[in-house]
């Protein structure tokens, strides 16, 4: 088969990529290190101090909490689904997870405001103090709505990969359930688990629309909101380059997280072949 054809087929994609992804990224890098037309590190410094630092830490905290709690809850739910004997239930839950994992953003915020907002339907019933939704834990609670289904989708195939023969073999050798999980189950699941945690972290870290629509930005500092503020503010002028520096920080953090994810993901798929 002709060699050049490989490049030819991939050429449109590569050209597209270079233009549509490469140019904005280059602009981002250039702008992050420029201020008033001169190269400088001031933007980067500003992006890591004061309100911006608070926002970065806030984002990492929210994402970490969402990732860990979502992972635990999602794994339990996935296990319940996978060990259920009803195919209909499995199908329903997996379909629902497929929908909800992709459904975030603005409508999610509206649902929760209607439910647990200050004049929400349920907050009156539960006697919640005003403003409870617009807090760190309120945001985490809302973010779980797409995080738990995402974890279910990641863990269900992995849990399916736990062959029942292993369980039987372990039982025959006198292992208790605890032993089984500790020495067989969890090690096998660990790559998928870690991969799921990383995926959840990335999704929560990058989330913007939900937090913006909830108006939580006034009390929960998030770096995505800060970037949007710097780009479209009515208060401070000329903050675009700081927004780019903040974006660069975000990409670095997301990159580090992803660098952990990819090898883990490859390992987990290899296990399940």
């Amino acid at each position, binding site marked *: 088969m002709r060699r050049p054809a490989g490049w030819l087929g991939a050429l449109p994609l590569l050209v597209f990529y270079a233009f549509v992804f490469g140019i904005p990224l280059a602009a981002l890098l250039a702008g992050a290190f420029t201020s008033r037309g001169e190269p400088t590190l001031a933007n980067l410094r500003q992006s890591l101090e004061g309100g911006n630092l608070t926002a970065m830490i806030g984002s990492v905290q929210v994402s970490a909490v969402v990732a860990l709690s979502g992972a635990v809850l999602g794994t339990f739910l996935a296990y319940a689904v996978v060990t259920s004997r009803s195919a209909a239930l499995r199908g329903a839950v997996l379909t629902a997870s497929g929908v909800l994992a992709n459904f975030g953003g603005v409508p999610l915020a509206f649902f929760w405001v209607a439910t647990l907002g*200050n004049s929400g339907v349920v907050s009156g019933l539960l006697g919640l103090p005003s403003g409870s939704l617009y807090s760190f834990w309120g945001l985490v609670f809302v973010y779980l709505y797409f995080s738990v289904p995402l974890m279910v989708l990641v863990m269900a195939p992995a849990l399916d990969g736990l062959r029942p023969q292993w369980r039987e073999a372990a039982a025959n050798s006198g292992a208790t359930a605890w032993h089984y999980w500790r020495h067989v189950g969890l090690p096998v699941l660990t790559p998928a688990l870690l991969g799921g945690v990383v995926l959840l972290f990335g999704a929560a870290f990058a989330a913007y629309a939900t937090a913006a629509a909830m108006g939580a*930005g006034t*009390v929960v500092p998030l770096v995505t909101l800060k970037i949007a503020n710097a780009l479209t503010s*009515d208060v401070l*002028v000329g903050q675009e380059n700081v927004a780019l520096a903040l974006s660069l920080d975000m990409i670095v953090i997301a990159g580090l997280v992803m660098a952990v994810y990819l090898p883990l993901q490859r390992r987990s798929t290899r296990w399940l072949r």
Partner: protein
Amino acid sequence: MFTPRARTAGAIAALTVITAACGAAPGTQGTTAEGGVDARTATSAADFGGFDALVEAAKKEGRLHVIALPPDWANYGEIIKTFESTYGITIESEDPDASSADEINAVKTRKGQDRAPDVLDLGQSFALSGAAEGLFAPYKVQAFDKIPEGQKEPTGLWVNDYGGYISIGCDANKINPCPTSFADLLRPGYKGKVALNGNPTKAGAAFAGVYAAAIAEGGSFDDIQPGIDFFKKLKDVGNFNPVETTPATIEKGETPISIDWDYINAAYAPQLAPKGLDWQVNVPTDGKYFQMYAQAINKDAPHPAAARLWMEFLYSPEGQNLYLKGFARPVLMPVMQEDGTIDETAAAALPEVEGEPAFPTTEQVDAAKEKLVSGWDAAISG
């Protein structure tokens, strides 16, 4: 991979599409009115050869492109309609929820396009920075000399148009008694009820709310920290509601007390009355903060004559009175009160304020904004 015929067909198609969307930016072309006047460089009605010549030139252009003008903000809805019907010029009002930064962005990104905004209504800092960046065209409206110094750029790059005080709006049916000062807001009966019009680090009205609180709490134009501390206190006693006020949230009962510009709050009252809400507006007695917005003409406006006519309209008694009808205080108000062109009923309907406003300098405002942006998150989330 594809047959030669398919390849050539594809290439031709691609070339057609590309060339269709090709072309350099149009060079500067002035719209010539009668007598060969270039509307782009006209700095006053006299440059057109008189007001009527300006109207002619504007009518020839036939369109005006505006941005960030919500219909219920200082009565812009009626202003736009009146302008359209008086001069027969169609106004395209785009993106009413845009911020001042969005407006400046639109000017920069759409330079030379037909959908660039012609005129801008900006927060003060943005007017100043835009002028410094050379985005605006100088133009002196006919009433230019009557506008007080300090409320206009000397060559007319930007001119203040209307302003208002920070006020406390309150649903009297749900809240009794309605707060009339910042100190009142800390009362225990207002748990979870006091809201701002957005995030102070992003929304101009919310920033002004914090600034006004600073004055109320013993700070000054140089010291916004007491304002930040006030809101921290408000949050600690549980009265602060982070939800951004909109007519929908007020109607729902989610934000029965709202700190916002007085013209915004006052405009809610007739809007909400049919829904059974009694919306009252009070300018806080302990923290008065007055701020004006500014009009500017895009230097590369696609409809330069219409843009200048729009300015003339806004600064005519009719235009200024329409602002007044929207509960905003027009810049020419003291002048109009003296020569009797003011709309008395509208003036009487304004929320009551005692005394004259004091204006911070640009440096003070900029410093306060910096201080707020760096300190707000830590204070309010901690």
